[in-house]
């Protein structure tokens, strides 16, 4: 490493991780004299709430330097610049990302947190400029757009990581590696449920004095501020709750089952928000051909009250028990069927944590001690989460740029999770069941 120049290092590090990566030269990213050799220079496009989360997650990571922020809303630009100042970082603000790419010649990677309908074009433009890209979900607003991103990534030597952050969450990885993998718990999975409820609340507004002029809104595709602030409501810009929430959970289902669905049923509608187009309540049912046989997965995204006592989760029901997992450890629990074999071995191995002191087993002989009732309590996962999951996902991206890791969610994986989401939307709109074939997932 001592003899390798920084631009060579960053320019080649990711190439080996991509199938069919071309030996393309990386345009225009340069180290300046004041930054360490493996510093990654970043810009972020879109600094709304998720863009702020990206800044907060990335800025604390060593050798990550924000050079620029881009947003069509000056209110947000200023907020992002000020926020970066509090992390001792200074960034130039832009309205148009193309102008930013033209002027910022020191960039290595771009973070994208703009509305879904802009993602594919922005990703491809950034790849074309020789930059690695981290893009929030959904990667694309249509199946064809998603396919074009995967192809663009393959044709460059750049990396595309998509923000399905559960793939970097240590508890989720623990379940895949240890429970489903080594311990083979909970044996044959027969059903999956995913559920995410958001509280019914107001449409997003904006401080009146920060209203954008109409000509600027139209230049970027919006008729008015309401559309701009509530873009997931409108089919032209996004796919609503299915894209924003269910896509994350379906990505987990694909990942845990190591399979892709072969059919989609869905029902949904606009039940609460009268002026929106995309469903605010949606239930989808997918069938997965797996080594166990057919597994059915039911996903729900709901607009009601958040005070339901069970939170949001993905739940895998097997013969020997149930794995319920959530980003929030509060909602994660592993339930053992009373007829299953002992799980003590997995407790000793550190795969599971007992939350009870006495095992609860059915009586098997006359020697059982008669005593007070034992409470059935689920097992827990070990405490593995030490950083915000978004930060871990970004760290994986940065490690991959430096050639020290494989991406946890490259564009191909994201595409395979987004096809079923877009098909569920289609199923709602056409009121028919949809078959999915391997060709649907081909890139």
């Amino acid at each position: 490493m001592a003899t390798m120049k920084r631009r060579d290092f960053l320019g080649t590090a990711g190439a080996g991780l991509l199938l069919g990566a071309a030996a393309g030269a990386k345009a225009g990213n340069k180290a300046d004299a004041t930054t360490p050799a493996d510093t990654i220079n970043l810009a972020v496009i879109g600094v709304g709430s998720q863009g702020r989360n990206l800044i907060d997650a990335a800025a604390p990571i060593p050798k990550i330097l924000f050079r620029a922020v881009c947003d069509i809303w000056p209110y947000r630009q200023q907020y992002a610049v000020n926020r970066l100042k509090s992390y001792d970082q200074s960034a130039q603000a832009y309205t148009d990302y193309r102008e930013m790419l033209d002027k910022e010649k020191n960039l290595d990677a771009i973070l994208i947190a703009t509305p879904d309908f802009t993602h594919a074009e922005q990703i491809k433009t950034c790849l074309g400029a020789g930059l690695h890209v981290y893009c929030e979900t959904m990667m694309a607003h249509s199946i064809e757009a998603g396919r074009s991103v995967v192809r663009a990534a393959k044709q460059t030597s750049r990396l595309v990581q998509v923000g399905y952050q559960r793939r970097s969450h240590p508890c989720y990885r623990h379940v895949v590696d240890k429970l489903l993998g080594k311990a083979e718990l909970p044996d044959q999975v027969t059903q999956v449920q995913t559920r995410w409820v958001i509280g019914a609340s107001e449409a997003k507004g904006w401080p009146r004095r920060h209203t954008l002029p109409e000509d600027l809104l139209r230049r970027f595709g919006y008729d008015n501020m309401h559309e701009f602030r509530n873009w997931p409501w409108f089919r032209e810009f996004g796919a609503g709750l299915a894209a924003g929430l269910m896509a994350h959970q379906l990505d987990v289902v694909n990942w845990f089952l190591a399979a892709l669905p072969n059919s989609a049923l869905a029902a949904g509608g606009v039940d609460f928000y009268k002026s929106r187009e995309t469903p605010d309540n949606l239930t989808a049912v997918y069938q997965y051909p797996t080594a166990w046989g057919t597994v059915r997965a039911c996903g729900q995204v709901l607009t009601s009250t958040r005070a339901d006592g069970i939170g949001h989760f993905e739940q895998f029901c097997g013969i020997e028990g149930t794995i319920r997992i959530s980003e929030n450890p509060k909602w994660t629990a592993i339930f053992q069927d009373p007829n299953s074999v002992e799980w003590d071995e997995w407790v000793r191995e550190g795969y599971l944590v007992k939350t009870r002191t006495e095992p609860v087993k059915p009586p098997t002989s006359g020697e059982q001690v008669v005593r007070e009732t034992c409470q059935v309590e689920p097992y827990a996962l070990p405490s593995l989460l030490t950083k915000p999951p978004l930060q871990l996902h970004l760290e994986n991206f940065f490690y991959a740029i430096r050639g020290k890791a494989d991406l946890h969610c490259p564009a191909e994986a994201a595409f395979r999770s987004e096809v079923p989401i877009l098909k569920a939307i289609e199923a709602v709109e056409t009121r028919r069941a949809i078959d999915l074939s391997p060709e649907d997932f081909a890139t």
Partner: protein
Amino acid sequence: MPHSDLSTQTLSREAMATVFTITVAHAEPDYARQAIRAALDELDLLEDRLSRFRPSSDVARINRLQPGQKTTVAPETLACLQAALAVESRTGRALDIAYASAPSAAARIELGPAGSTVRVLVPGVRLDLGGIGKGFAIDRMATVLAEWDIEAALLWASTSTVLAVGTPPGGCAWSVWIGPEDARRSIRLVNRALSASGVSTQGHHIVDPRSGRPAARRARCWAEAPTAAEADALSTAFIVMSQTEITRYCLEHPEASARAFDVRGGDFATCSDRPTRT
């Protein structure tokens, strides 16, 4: 705009193991409700940062650090810690956000100096922002409302901390009540916060950091201050401080005031040089 043209809108959200409620007075009800939503969205972010029960929060990460290690935290976390340490210093550690830590006479954490970093200085640091976090969250939400040019609002964390912004429609101050059931008294607030701490609702949950034992000096006390964070923190501190200590504090810090009643049911002991009671 005449005050009589204003209507009030109220929304609540669950966070930090309680319910926050915001009332806004504004001529446009939809605008008021959108402003409240924006403020409550900020609350969700703060809980992610400040809760010691969330393993990836800033506070949980600080609590896992070894001496000499540092971590970068969100600017809001740093601001909350700065506010807490300021009250700790002014009250002689009657408020101690590290009360659950291993005993140490030395400073436990160091903030900054560059960036938004926190360094742990001694072994066994366990921060708990429960004595100030809710008030701090109220102040942050008030900042959001100010960005929306909201001039009249009342922000509550449960029933324990309240910040009054401006004045209500048709009134010259927001009125709230304090005191025991049989001796309630009205407090009028304008651009000030009031916070209560006590042992009657959650039992002896307040620990006197100077003794390490549950505080038992008085059943409930109130602190009034310019910000909700300060009022929240001071009410926590006042409940373990003696009457003399509270009186001295209020004389030295005229921006704050205190009211307390004894656990034996005695009348209010008021420590204030400001005529805030009606």
